[in-house]
């Protein structure tokens, strides 16, 4: 079976800075794939390129179709939803409006309503705060809203950029438990994380990124025992 997402020779340059140098990876249907890497390794750049937010070189195929030249908003319609780094909640919109905007690509009002109910059932805290401005939510609530907002487009691939960033250990556990649950239900996930221990426990496979290039890859369980990973990311 061909992978859901197939990236080949991806490059991202910011002026003279080569942030991503010929990165290739794939995500198969039902997998949870993790991208690990230190600050500045190029993780966010890869995800932005994948969503079409920044120009990039190389090839990308998603769900059997080439992504070259496909604008960012069209990629959401094709099934790629991203929870961006720093959550990026629309602070001036209410919780409900943030969610509805996430469902922009939904064709029918009925489907939108159904998804709204589904997301609110998943995050009861949000349903208590529907009319509250997004900017007034706590960090943890904003992360839930960011995930809920991404789910509203019914993605085939859910992409998350450091979902645990800035959260208390308890909330980190909760977020990962939720991602594990999504994975168990059959959702396909691509997750960027610095929290390597947690991510490698849950993921199917992982890629390790250094200075814009992939230096290691393999099943998550194998990488967990890799001495290099243990030294660099697991503090062992």
């Amino acid at each position, binding site marked *: 079976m061909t992978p859901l997402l197939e990236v080949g020779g991806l490059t991202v340059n910011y002026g003279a800075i080569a942030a991503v140098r010929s990165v290739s990876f794939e995500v198969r249907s039902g997998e949870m794939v993790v991208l690990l890497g230190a600050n500045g390794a190029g993780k966010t750049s890869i995800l932005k390129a994948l*969503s079409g937010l920044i120009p990039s070189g190389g090839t990308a195929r998603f769900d059997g179709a080439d992504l070259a030249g496909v604008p960012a908003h069209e990629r959401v319609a094709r099934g790629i939803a991203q929870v*961006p780094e720093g959550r990026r909640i*629309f*602070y*001036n919109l209410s919780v409900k409006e943030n969610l509805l905007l996430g469902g922009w690509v939904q064709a029918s009002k009925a489907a939108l309503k159904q998804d709204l109910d589904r997301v609110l059932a998943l995050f009861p805290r949000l349903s208590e705060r529907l009319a509250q401005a997004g900017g007034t939510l706590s960090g943890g609530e904003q992360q839930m809203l960011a995930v809920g907002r991404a789910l509203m487009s019914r993605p085939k691939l859910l992409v998350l950029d450091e979902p645990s960033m800035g959260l208390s250990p308890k909330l980190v556990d909760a977020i990962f438990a939720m991602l594990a649950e999504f994975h168990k239900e059959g959702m396909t996930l691509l997750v960027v994380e610095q929290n390597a221990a947690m991510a490698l426990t849950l993921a199917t496979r992982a890629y390790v990124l250094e200075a814009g290039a992939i230096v290691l890859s393999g099943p998550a369980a194998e990488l967990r025992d890799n001495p290099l990973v243990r030294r660099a990311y697991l503090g062992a």
Partner: protein
Amino acid sequence: MIYFFQQALNAVQLGSVYALIALGYTMVYGVLSMINFAHGDFFMVGAFLCFVGAAVWHLPFVPVLLLSMGGVTMLGVATERIAYRPLRNAPKVSAIITSLGVGIFLEHVTLGLNPYPKYIPPLLPSFSFDLGGVSVSTFQLATIGVSFALMFALHLIVNKTKAGLALRAISADRAMVPLMGVPVDKMIALTFALGSGLGGAAGVMYGMAYPVIDPYIGIIVGWKAFVSAVIGGIGSIRGAVLGAYILGTVEIMTAAFLPSTYRDLVTFSLLFALLIYQPSGLLGRVEIQKV
């Protein structure tokens, strides 16, 4: 006292014209953080289309209004597409200079076609009602009524529709809006369409009040509307309307109770004083640091 109320009515009329134009400045600023200095000239083109509709084609009020609004809407959308979109990621100052250039271009195309000032014949039967001593003309009634209706329509679009939701999101964090599946370019075109359409309507309202027009009317009226938007807090829709009525009132009342040559002096002193105490305008928000 009657004199005061008469002047208050004039203030609402002038404020309505400023408000319609100020909305165009504030909406474009809200979604693009760019000041479209050609917007005053969009308004001027609206007044000339009003002239064409009324004096050349002898159309009645409503078709003339639709002609000006439709024509300027197309002008605004085309300007964005041709002149501003290619500069979307260029330094801000490039887009601002371009908008000044577009404005001068429009003034001189209009001048080429109309070397002499034009007179707009009355668009409505001209008579006045007596309202407790205050005389209300059909022109004033039409200006205030149409302006309120258009502003209410804009309010509904921005706050109650899916497109309005996207516009508000763009004003908060444009870079993230594509991740919601929203075609941002289309939404920016919509912003120009709405703002320009209102500017076109303002051209008709202005033409009814001051029927002799030339290609340079957009400069000073445009500046005043821009000042209105800044007073209210540029980027804020309610602020633009509030600022416009404040400015209209200050101008009319200054002229009514002081020598009329003091008008612009008082207006701009007010602007300076306000900005010292409230740099982001009355309803403007302090720039939020983007993460």
